[in-house]
């Protein structure tokens, strides 16, 4: 009996996760002027409305550029930090490791408010401020995934290269980096999604004129949800799941992020 109950309950869970997502995709095709599921009729009008909507498309562009810039920065910072932290006897190793993971443990709304306070003073309520903030949010994931892939490496290869006279930089470039590349790329892809879909922090530090896509959706949701919002939401779902599938196909998300 037990054997059949658990898969049944598990499949119910999977269904409950997937169904709302399918509903958003379905609702974006409705012919009505309001959102409804199941959709009435089939039209792509709301997608053309979303594409013609300057705020939505501006938000999409902003989200993409902020995500790319912040991932690029946090990959550089995070990989270097992880290389240091991977040494078993590094100075302040334990303290620094928990410091780099701390942004995940402090309530996000507090981080968001803190950044609002500081960035208002520093005149950073703009694109640069968003990038700086998203580096803070993505850094822990990069450090973690690079540390995981460094832990699986045979250090003797690096030592051999060093003994044969390679400079530390050459050792990194020719040996370490190729070995940890899957970990770096997996962390970067994951970090991209984290940044691209973030609302709690972005909503505090963006202005109506320059808001990332999820923040634009957040602001619109307050009045009424029109089908073009469903279309934009559907676009982010498709983009996110596509990136997740690529990540899974190439590196196995679970292996690289949660081990």
């Amino acid at each position: 009996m037990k054997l059949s109950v658990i898969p049944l309950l598990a499949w119910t869970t999977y269904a409950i996760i997937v169904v709302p997502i399918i509903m958003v995709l379905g609702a974006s095709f409705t012919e009505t002027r309001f959102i409804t599921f199941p959709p009435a009729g089939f039209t792509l009008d709301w997608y053309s409305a979303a594409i013609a909507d300057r705020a939505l498309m501006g938000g999409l562009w902003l989200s993409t550029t902020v995500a790319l810039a912040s991932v690029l920065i946090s990959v550089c910072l995070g990989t270097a930090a992880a290389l240091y932290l991977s040494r078993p006897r590094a100075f302040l190793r334990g303290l620094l490791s928990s410091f780099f993971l701390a942004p995940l443990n402090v309530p996000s709304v507090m981080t968001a408010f803190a950044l609002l306070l500081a960035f208002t003073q520093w005149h950073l309520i703009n694109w640069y401020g968003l990038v700086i903030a998203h580096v803070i949010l993505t850094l822990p994931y990069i450090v973690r995934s690079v540390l995981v892939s460094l832990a699986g490496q045979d250090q003797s290869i690096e030592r051999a290269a060093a003994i044969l006279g390679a400079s530390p930089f050459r050792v990194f470039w020719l040996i370490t980096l190729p070995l940890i590349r899957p970990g770096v790329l997996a962390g970067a892809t994951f970090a991209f999604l984290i940044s691209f879909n973030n609302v709690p922090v972005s909503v505090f530090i963006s202005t109506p004129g320059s808001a990332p896509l999820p923040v634009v959706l957040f602001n619109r949701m307050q009045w009424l949800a029109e089908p073009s919002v469903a279309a934009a939401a559907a676009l982010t779902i498709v983009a996110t799941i596509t990136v997740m599938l690529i990540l899974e196909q190439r590196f196995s998300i679970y292996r690289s992020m949660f081990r």
Partner: protein
Amino acid sequence: MNGRSPLTLVLPATLWLAVAWGWPLVLVLSMSFRNMDPMTFELSGFTLKHFREVLTDSFYLDAIFRSLRIATIVTILSCVLGYPAALHIARTTSQRARAAYTLILLIPVMISLVVTAFAWILILGPSGFINRALASLHLTSEPLQFLNSEAGIIAVLVYSFGPYMIINICTALEKIDPAILRAAELHGANPRRVFARVTLPLSFPGILSGGLIVFSLSAAAFVTPYVIGGNRVKVVPLQIYNAAVTTFDWPMAATLSIVLLILSILLTTAVARLTERRFAAWLGGS
């Protein structure tokens, strides 16, 4: 790269975090002790009145208890509803199937909270899927109010953060040596007893670590309460958001942030203590 330990590697990331995140947090702390003129927004002096207000005014106390209650219910529900899926994934031997299940679990984690909330409005709204289904079955005469209620917020938070619980339980389950389970069976325990006496206790660390994540994420969430609760169900993060961007009462937003942080630190240390003692007892007993 062995031998010496070039601190320069870790310096850029440390500086970035310290300046762009650590310093702003210090600003929050100092802001919570300042007086603010409500007309001119000018800051002055040193005061403890915001902390006194938060700890005595029922407006804030109610929100604190509501936040803790919601987070507790979300954590318990995530554990109970998520456990079967965790067991199922841990027992799946096919790598492909397991990858597919984890990918499904990660969808709510990766999709934007706004999009998730939006999806649930389609389901729970007055003209949403559930209400229309109930109406067409003639079970209800007028739509049930799921939105603007704690129940609706709890449902969506379980959806968004429950996967963290499942993943943590699953990791703990995978660490269980199958030989222990076989030994229990050979000694005559039926599957139910094996589960209650072996599997469940051994997955306890996963429940705790998953529970900690789910609890702190739910206690700090404001996007879901804002969209699903229509800014009406007052939880602490929502009050922080409103104080920060609507009424510009920054000292109060700062004070509430500090209170939220202290609560989450207290909880984390309590759970860490509890696990240590538990493990010590188990190790001592075996």
